[in-house]
């Protein structure tokens, strides 16, 4: 029982830490804005770029 639960906890932790680290890392200068057109056709909701775009739109 224990190894399974611990493993899942570990994997979750690893993912979230890497996610947070990635979010903290700023994109290189001049590349923070992504061409919205290039993103348009894709329906992927996990895409962080799409999120940032939406957030910017909302602002």
């Amino acid at each position, binding site marked *: 029982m224990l*190894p*399974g639960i611990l*493993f*899942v906890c570990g*994997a*979750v932790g*690893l*993912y979230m*830490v*890497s*996610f947070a*680290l*990635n979010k903290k*890392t*700023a*994109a*290189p*200068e001049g*590349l923070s804005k*992504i*061409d919205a057109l*290039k*993103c348009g*056709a*894709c*329906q*992927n*909701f*996990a*895409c*962080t*770029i799409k999120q940032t775009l939406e957030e910017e739109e909302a602002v």
Partner: protein
Amino acid sequence: MTWTVFFTAIFSAMLINNVVLLRFLGVCPFLGVSKKTESALGMSMAVTFVMVVAAAVTYPLYYLVLKPLEIEYVQTIAFILIIASLVQLVEMFIKKFSKKLYKSLGIYLPLITTNCAILGIAVQNITDNYADLYGIGPGFFVAVVTAFGAALGFGLVMFSFSSIRERLDAATNLPESWRGVPVSLIVAGIMALAFLGLGGIV
């Protein structure tokens, strides 16, 4: 085990079991990111990179961690989380260290977390049981080579499909109701038929 195993693995993953056309993995980016040849190539490069790394990580994870601990049942969640973190880490490193690489791959990397081809190949490498066929060590190389071949196949199809699509979009004599996605799907179907013919290559 000989070199022929690797060549067989590469060709069969690339042509005979083409991820997109014959196994339906990664159809979303296939239709979504294939409007321009340039973006299709960018996506293919990102997929190649992540697919190989993901195969190289998930295979030992399964055989060195999950199996000895007898927790094979967490495979699905383990793989998706590992691949997702991998993508995040790769994106972070690219952001930090290579502006050029980020410029060409940056848009596509985040899409890859939920690309079924990556997870699909990782799972396939386990269910195809290379470890039993070749032993755990050599099986690792076969798994990585298979992933590479699959990514090559993805790139090949993406490139040719986007080239066709660029012309399709310019075609004006198409019936209106077929324009856009429907005709693209028909083209993909014809391409799949063509790829069926490659079945006897290995």
